[in-house]
Every structure is written in structure tokens, then in C-alpha cells.
């Protein structure tokens, strides 16, 4: 289905996403074509920067030796919803729709339904974490919290694609960059530095957050 949409919307180069390991690839190859052939108008606004995610990440890492995924999740969901309503959604509009979506029209029922879908989205994410070598039974609570956190990072994108403001292919870029963040951050897990932040879910949380912050910010510039 994703493929069809991508094709309909025009230039196939647009959907070129490299699940590659280097960050340079993301900006040089994925997102540059976006600039040239815009099928989705993204207002380049510095306000698109997810400040709340930066703050959450800061909160998560500076709490003394207590990396509380649960607390972060409770804070993340409302903040993401607010971010979607007030900032992110307004800066996206679909050029294919000749009828312009007015700036502040928010599909309220949808935005309430989306967090529930995120629970389902968390299942494949959790599975992926386990398939990549995450613990299966021990620490399962952490795995659940991690996957819920990661899935909620995608909340604005999922909302927009359900609301047909953007195509799923754009959303894929965000998912891939979160994935890459986690993939790269897992480098620190085997190191024998004996730091508390090397314990299992922490690097993945930080990597995922960094990945999503980067992807939201980079959309501004490319």
C-alpha cells in the first residue's frame, strides 16, 4: 500500500530512504529530494523543533542514576499531543489536496484515538527490540515501556498520516531515523565502563529520542 501511495504522489525518488547507518545519508540523500520536489509542504519553521523532547531527554538523563521510563512515558503522551495540535500539524499541509486545510483545524476524535493505536504500534517495536537481541523474559517491563516510548515518538506523524495531511512515506523517514538512533546507540551496551546509562533500555531510549529530535529538526532545514 505504501508503495502505491508513493508512486501516486509523484517523483519516486522522494521515497528513497536509506536504512543506512550514517546520519549523513539521511540528510544528503533522503531529505534533499524533498526540497526539490515538494509534494508535502512543510513550513520551515524553527518552531517545528520538538523542544519538549529535548527537555524530556534532559530530564531522563540527568535524574540521578534513575532512568525512569514510566515517568517519561506519562509526560511524553500529553506533550506529544500538545505539540501535534499547536505546532506540528499546522506546519504541514498536503499540496495534493487542492482544498487547503485551514491552519487550526484539528481532528479531535482522531487525536484521542491515536494514542490508543500507539499501543498497537508498540507491539512490533517491542518485537523488533527482542529480535535484535533484547532480553526476552527478564526485564520485560522495561521492554514494554521502551517500545511504548518509541511508538509515542511517532505520534504526530501517525496522526498526520491518518488525517491524510502527509503520505505514509514521509512518516517512514521518521520511523527509520528513530530506528537508526536505536541501532547506533546500542554500540555502548557491550562496553565495560560500568556506567548506569549502559544498562539495557537506557541507550535505546536515548538513541530513539535523539533520532526523533534529529528527524523533526532536519525537516526544518531540508
Amino acid at each position, binding site marked *: 500500500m505504501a*508503495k502505491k501511495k508513493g508512486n501516486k504522489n509523484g517523483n519516486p525518488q522522494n521515497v528513497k530512504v536509506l*536504512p543506512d547507518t550514517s546520519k549523513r545519508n539521511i540528510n544528503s540523500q533522503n531529505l534533499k529530494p524533498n526540497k526539490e520536489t515538494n509534494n508535502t509542504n512543510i513550513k520551515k519553521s524553527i518552531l517545528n523543533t520538538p523542544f519538549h523532547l529535548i527537555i524530556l531527554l534532559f530530564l531522563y538523563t540527568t535524574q540521578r542514576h534513575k532512568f525512569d521510563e514510566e515517568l517519561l512515558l506519562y509526560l511524553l503522551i500529553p506533550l506529544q499531543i500538545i505539540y501535534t495540535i499547536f505546532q506540528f500539524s499546522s506546519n504541514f499541509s498536503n499540496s495534493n489536496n487542492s482544498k487547503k486545510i485551514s491552519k487550526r483545524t484539528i481532528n479531535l476524535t482522531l487525536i484521542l484515538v491515536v494514542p490508543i493505536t500507539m499501543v498497537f504500534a508498540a507491539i512490533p517495536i517491542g518485537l523488533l527490540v*527482542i*529480535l*535484535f*537481541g533484547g532480553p526476552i523474559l527478564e526485564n520485560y517491563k522495561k521492554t514494554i515501556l521502551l517500545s511504548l516510548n518509541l511508538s509515542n515518538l511517532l505520534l504526530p506523524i501517525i496522526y498526520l498520516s491518518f488525517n491524510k495531511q502527509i503520505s505514509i512515506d514521509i512518516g*517512514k523517514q521518521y520511523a527509520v531515523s528513530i530506528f537508526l538512533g536505536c541501532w547506533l546507540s546500542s554500540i555502548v551496551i557491550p*562496553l565495560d565502563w560500568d556506567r548506569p546509562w549502559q544498562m539495557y533500555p537506557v541507550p535505546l531510549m536515548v538513541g530513539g529520542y535523539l533520532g526523533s529530535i534529529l528527524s523533526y529538526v532536519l525537516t526544518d532545514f531540508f
Partner: protein
Amino acid sequence: MDEKQLRQQEMLLQNGLNPNFDGNDSNFTDSPRNIADNLYKQRNRKFKKLHILYVFFIFSIAILQFISIAFFSRGFLLTRNVLDNISTDNNPNSILNDKPQFDKTVILIVDALRFNFVIPVDVDSMDYNPNYHNNIDVLYDTFKNSQDSSSVLLKFIADPPTTTMQRLKGLTTGTLPTFIDAGSNFDGSVILEDNLIKQLYLNKFWNDIYFVGDDTWDALFKPYLNQQFSRPFDSLNVWDLDTVDNGVISYFHEYLIDQSSKDQMTYKTLIGHMLGVDHVGHKYGPNHFTMKEKQLQINQFLKEIINSIDDNTLLVVMGDHGMDHTGNHGGDSVDELESTLFMYAKKKNSFTLDKDYETSYNISNFGESYKQVNQIDLVPTLSLLLDLQIPFNSLGWPIDEIAQNSQQLEMFQNITVQQLHTFKETSNLLTSDDERNLLLDELFEKNLYHDYQIQLLEVCKDLWARFDYISIAIGITFLFISLVYLIILTQLIPSIVINKLVTEFVPLIICLIFILNLIFFGTFYVFPTSASQHHPLRFLNGHFIWTSLFSTAIGIILGIMIPLLDHYSIKWLICRFFEFFGDYWTRVAGIFVILHSLLFASNSFTIWEDKIVGFFLTSFGCLTLYEFVFVPKRQSTVALLSGLYVENKKKVITNTDELDDVAAELNKKMEDPYPDSLPLSKESRILGSYHSILLIILTRLVSTITICREEQGDFCKPTFTIDNNYSPYIMGLLFIMIFLIPSLVKGYFRLSSSYQGAAPFWINGFLRCFLLMNFIYWFITSLEITVPSWSVNLFKGMDIKTMNFTLSRTLAGFSLVAANIGWLMGPLCIELGLSNNSENVNVKQASVLGYKNIYGSQFFLLVINVFMSIVVFNKPLAQLSIFAMLLQLLTILEIIDLFRLKQNIIGPVALGLLCYQQYFTTGHQATIPSIQWDMGFILSPSITFPLTHIGLFLNTFGPHIIVSLSVALLTFWRQPPSILNPQTLLARIVSSCGGLAIYNTVLCLSSFIFVTHFRRHLMVWKIFCPRYLFASASLLITQFIVVFVTIAFASGRLIRQINELFWRQ
């Protein structure tokens, strides 16, 4: 008939004309049949020649790599300069001439007697285990109850490496065996260096030495032992738990225990070496009921000895090393190093214990803070107790407890320090102006004797770790050059050009090897003085082997370099190299290879390599899944384009090769080579996603099987244990696999409709029967291991264990010999199928079923043979892992085929990742103790030359063998005949094999560089050095299998056979 005429005729044939009626020249009298025959013969000759050239060419690169590894190892693996001096009575320092304190000595070595086996352990403790704790209590009880100081019990710290041979050398010479000695464990040779046994032998009083037990002693000390009465037993048969021990016990009964009343014993020294505990550890691990039985037996035996010795006898009981939680040893973990030393004499006040009894001999917490002595300290200690000369090379220090008073202690220390000083002065270890030498002299003058010994020991440890940097540099350079050649010749230059170049390489290499050998021999061997003192290659002087290896390597390097630079400029090659990485999948492969090689830059990554390799393989699976699901239109992804590019280019380049082209053209019309070229059809996308998901899931599942490295600590829970391996669940799974594996393989054959001809016979017949018999064998073995004293007598005198050997030999004989002979017969997986013509119902259409995968299906039967032979030599859990490997292999082949990436380097790299992952999940680690020695005894109960070695080889390098064989499948799988001519096909196989070789070479090169970089690292002998040894072995074995089995034997044969069928029309 010359080639030109033939070609003309061929052209005419293509046009449907009969050459006999064409033209005015009536010379053409051959029938078309004959022409085709001639054509075929010519083609066959051409192919045979090229095949031989290719084999030689790849082999010469393999030789170059072998030489580079040899040079590196020469420089890196340390050797110690052994002094042959012997301490004698003439030594002016000798003070020992009075009568010795004791009349007789009895020395009993209990192999792998870990310290916490012999001390009382708190039963409430977390780590208390009734199987191996508190069973041997006699030593500690004797020690504790002997208020008259007649015994002493100490913790005995071995020096790594903790292999029995190294320990025996250390125990008797008092010095530090270097790593290179570890390799000679199977090949013991007499110790010429001065040692304790030699001193006993030289001493008139002690010289009658009786020995019983481990035959390593016989190998090491043969001239000194009383040959008439000594009774050595075979030591390396680790599955035999009782023979040695019972032999030792009955021998001791005969000569000591039962005879104690009569005073007719002739011996002065009685040495026993028991292996039971060690063998139980190797076979079952410490946590097994057999260990308890063994320990109780030893306890009883020790009691008898203690009761039976007379007043003037010294009893020494010790272990040579400990064992880790898996029961193995060889490394340097605390459990492996901590052993036991117990000395006992009936005479009162033989020893002086520490004043501070409670702190020195504190048994709490598994004896953590118990007083410990070094193993090398035994040599001076025993020498002084028995009034012997201290062996010349000894570095130890007498233990305090043996002196009866402080004067005697001082005397002992004086004697020892004299010996140490003589050793230092004679050995010229240090130059006189060396800082450390000055320090030692200062300590000596200040009479700080113990500090002097400690310092000297440190100096020796340091000096015997001195590397030969020139050899190391040569090794690294040669390996790097071989890597560059592999990349250029198998990846950068189109294979069609290589076909031509090979004819230039091979004669030149042979010539140059001869010429250079002559030159270098002249310089270094015949006239060794001609090389000056400061010449960098002066170490070759007078060394036959090294000179010839060096000149051969240079010959190979030049032999390839000259034609290469003749045809290509360096600039072009560099540009081509970067162009090569323009392709997406090549870049992915490059990233995997580089990341894997960088793992050796850190000890933590090297430790966790097992998990990381699995992570990479999962990543590969995810990338392909992404590709199948979303199909990003990536122009460079389409390897098809590069394939077409080569095909087009071939036309331009090889005008001379018209024959092949014309024929290929003809066949292309018959069969579209790429019926569903990219973009992928919906069905193939679904299929591909299924393969990717299966690959990911299987990878995750097998990664749960692990034998943890000791360094992984609490983060890893070993699952490859005795309990799990022989548990009913695993046996049940093995039983299910009898039905599941053939069906799954059948499924993959059906995908390409090649489950025809020989395939059902092989897969449903051979494989299934084999798996059934294999299951029976392992089921019996598991009963033998899990049920105590289980044995069934089948016939008279033939119990089930004997039958099991028959079974295992049948299995091995079938899979190693019979099945491969069967394959040589050429089992084709095709069949003629008749189907109704869609247009005309009355006309039946004939088609060859399995035509598309004719190469792959037949080659895979050989892979199944090898797979079967490897399965027998693996423990049940490892077997499950190898079953999964077969499926992973098939999924990778299918994925690569769907993407048309047959010539991309990602294929060999993915297979390489699979190979390394499977190495770890079959219960191995890149450490020496993780070698599964017990698998050597599947075919024979004792060490027999080929049988034991085959078992160990197939067990350790099974995944490497499977992968280096199946790398040819990347080309063969779903390769219809008659599309590529045989030469091109062969060139493509060489290219895939080159990809695998590149991967292994990069790993080996990286391990070379990092092990050299970390040569002073704390963990070098524990982590980096074993990894480098493993990388070298992997590279050599992969190259060996690739050259001789994959390219020379299997591919050549297969291509010729199919050729005969489809070209000889």
C-alpha cells in the same frame, strides 16, 4: 580442423543451414553432429585448462596468506630462551650435604583439584553445591587437627596457561612456560631443561623414582623414571573417567598402602598423577553427580595413604590447576588458577605454621583470603625439604612453612637467592646498565632477598614477552597485499578479463618463485654472512624454512603485480575501487565487514562478539525485509544493471570468443535469463518478506544457545550446558527434526521445482535415515550421561556403549565417504515432465522439470553431505543450531537470488556473518578452553590419529566448512544451464569465493593489527591472542576448503557434468 573453420560452421548451424551444402568448397564433410561434438570437446578442453589455472591462482593467494600468518605468528607468539645449565653438587654455593630430613617422598597430583573442593564450605552459602563441595574433607581435617604441625594446607596459584603440560613444566622446572609451549600439549617431548625430577634422579639418595598415572609424565621425564616399575596411562581420553584413577589406586595399594608393614619397598620417590576429577570436569562439568562420586573416591584414597605412610615419609598432595564453571581449563580465571597444595609428614614439627592462624588460614567465603603460594614456589620448597639442588632455571621462593625455625628459614632463603642470582648472572637477561638490573643488584646487596625474587620474576615475565617486530611487520604487510589482490582480482576487474589474465599470472608466479628462491637462498642460506649485522632481514640467515617461505611470498606478490600493472594503472584501480562502493548493497556489505573488523579494537566488543555478529545478521535481515516491503527505487540497487553492463562489455571485449557468444545468444532466446526482473512481482515480494522474517527469527532463536565466556560474567547465562544438552526437551526437539528438516529442505527445493530425480532419494531417504540414526546415537549417549550407571548388555560381551561406537562410525563413514562417492556419480535433480499443451489438447508438451535450478539443486546435495558429517560431531543443542543454519543458508540464497545480487559482495558477507554466528551458537567461543575436546572421542575411545582429529576439526570449524562450500551456491542457486558459458560461471564462483576470502582476510588483518597494538594489554593472552589465533585458523580453513573442495573439486565437476548434458546436443 582449425578454430576458424569450426566457428564458421557453428555460425551456419545457427542460421539453420547445413554447412555441407553451403559454399562451393566440398571439404566440409562432417555431419552437424560431429561438428557439435568437436565444438564441445574444444570447449571442454578450454574449460579444463582455465579451471586448473584458476585453482592454482587462488591457491597461490592462499599460500601467500599462509606465509603471512606464519611470519606474524613467528614474531608474536613468544618463545623463551631455555638455558641448559644444570645445578650440580659441584656448585660452590652448595651447603646441602648432610642427610636429608625424610627417607621417602610420595607425591600425588590430583588433576584439576580446585581449592574450594578441599576446604569446608558453608552449606547455607548461595554458591554451595553438594556435587563438588565438602566431599574431600580429609586434607583440611588433617591440617586442622594436627596441632603438632605435621601438615600444611595452602592455596596454590598456577600461572596461566592452565593446560596440564604447561603446569607440569612449571611445577618441575620452577619457571614460566610461554604461550608457544601450549601448542605442544598433544606432542610432549622430554624436558631437557633442569628440573625437579632430574634433580631427584641425579641425587644418589632419591634416584629411584616410581611413577603411575598421566602418560604426559612419561613423555616429559622418561629418562628419569624407573621404567621397570612405572605405569603410565593414556591421559587425553577425557571420556574415560576411571582407568587412570583405578590404576593409580591399585598401584598405590600394591606399593604403598598394603605393604606399609613390610619394609621391602625399593623406591625412594613415588609419584602418582590422577586424572579423574579433570575428566569429569571436561565431560560433565563440576555440577554433576559423577563429580561427587569421584571426589568421595579420592577422599577415601587420600585417607588410606595418610594412614599408611611411615614416619619418615613426606607426602605431597597437589592439584596442577583448577577448573572453571564449565569444567574446562586453559585460561586464567580465578577458578582455573586456584589449586591446592598439601604437605604432610608423620614426624612432629615438620612444619611451622603462621602465628596468625585465623587470618592466614581463613576458610570463610570459599577460602577467598586463604594464604596462597605460587606454583613455581614448589620447586625450591621441595628441593630444600629433600636436600636437592634447586633447579637452575627456577624462579620460585621457598614457602615459609617448611622451615622449622627462623635460622633454617634464613638458610633456605640464602640458598635460594644464591641460585636466583647465579641464574640471573648466567642468563644475561639484562644488560649491566639496565635500570632493572641496577635495581636488582641493589636489592641483592641490601639483602632484601624476597623483594629480589619478586623483582626478578617480574623481569622474566616481562622479558619473555618480547616480540619480533620485523616478522610481525612482514606478516601484516603480506596479508595486506593479499587483501588488495583479492579485492582487485575478484571484485574490481571484470571476471572476463581475469579469464585472460590468469594465463599470464600462473606461469609467471611459478617462474618467479623459483628465481627468488635461488636468489634468497644464495643470500641468506648458502652465504649467510653476506647479509650485514644491521640488515633488516638478517633473521633469515641460515634458516631454511623461513628463507624459502619469504622468497615464495615475494614470488607470488611479484608474479601477480607485474601482469596487473601491465594492464591497469594504479589510478584506474583506485577510481574503480570507489566506483565499486557506489552500489548500495556493496556499501552495506562494506559497513558490516568494517564494523566486524573494528570489534577487535576493544576487549568488550571482542568479548561480546557472539551477540554482535547475531545483531549484524538480524540487521541484514531487516534491510532485506525493508527492501521487500517498501521497494525503494534505488537505481544502484539493481545489480541486474551491472550484470547487463558486464554482458555488454563482454561482447565488446571478447570478439575472439564468438563461439561462446553465439551459443549463448541462441540459448538466451530459448530461456529468458531474468523472467521477472526487478521491480519485483508481488508474489516474489511476499516470498522475499517471508524469507527475511524467517532469517531474522531463526537468527534470534539460535542466538539463545551460548556457552558464555568467563568475561561476560553475570550478563550471560550459559545455555549450552550438560543439563540442557541432554535434557528430554532437546531430545524431543531432535526427534521432531528428523521429520521437520527434510520436509523444510524439500520445500525449498520445490520452490524452484527441482525436487526431482535424485533429490527425493537424497533428502527423503539419506537425510532422514541419517537423522534418525543420529538421533538414536545421541539418545543413547544422553542416557549414558544423565542416568547413573546405565548400561544394557545387548549380546554377549557387547554392551550398548560398544554398539554406540559402531553407530557413530557408520554415521561418519556414510556421511564422509559413502555419500560423497554417491555425489560423484552426479545425481541430477531434473526430470522430464509431460504437460498438456494449452493450445492443442492432443499434443503433449515435454519440459525439463528442475531445469532452472539444475546447478544449485545438485550442488546443494553436496552441502547436505557435509552438513550430515558435521551434525554427528556436535552436541544436541549445537545440532539444533546447525539445523537452523541450513534454513538460514537457504533463506539467504533465496533473498540474494530475488534481488539478483548474485555477483554482489553482500552475498559472501552475509554467509560470512552466518558462519561466525553459527560458530558461537554451536557452543564455541574464541577461547582455548571452549574447544570441545570430548567430541574427539566420538569415533574412538582413545586417541587415534585421523579419527580424533577429524572429530575435533569438524566440531570446531563446522560452520566454516559449510559456508565455504556453499558460497558457490550464491552463483549456482537458480542458475539455469546454457546461459552463462562455463568459463564465466567459474569466474563468478571465484568472485564469490573471493568475497568470502576478503571478509575473512579483513578480520584476520584487523586481529593482527589490534593484537600487536594491545601486546602489553592486560587481556592480551586472554582475549586478543586467542581471537587472532581463531581468525588465522578461520582464514586458512576457509581458503583451504574454498580452493580444494569448492573450486577444484565440486564446481569443476558440476560444471563439466552439466555442460556435457546441455552443450553436447
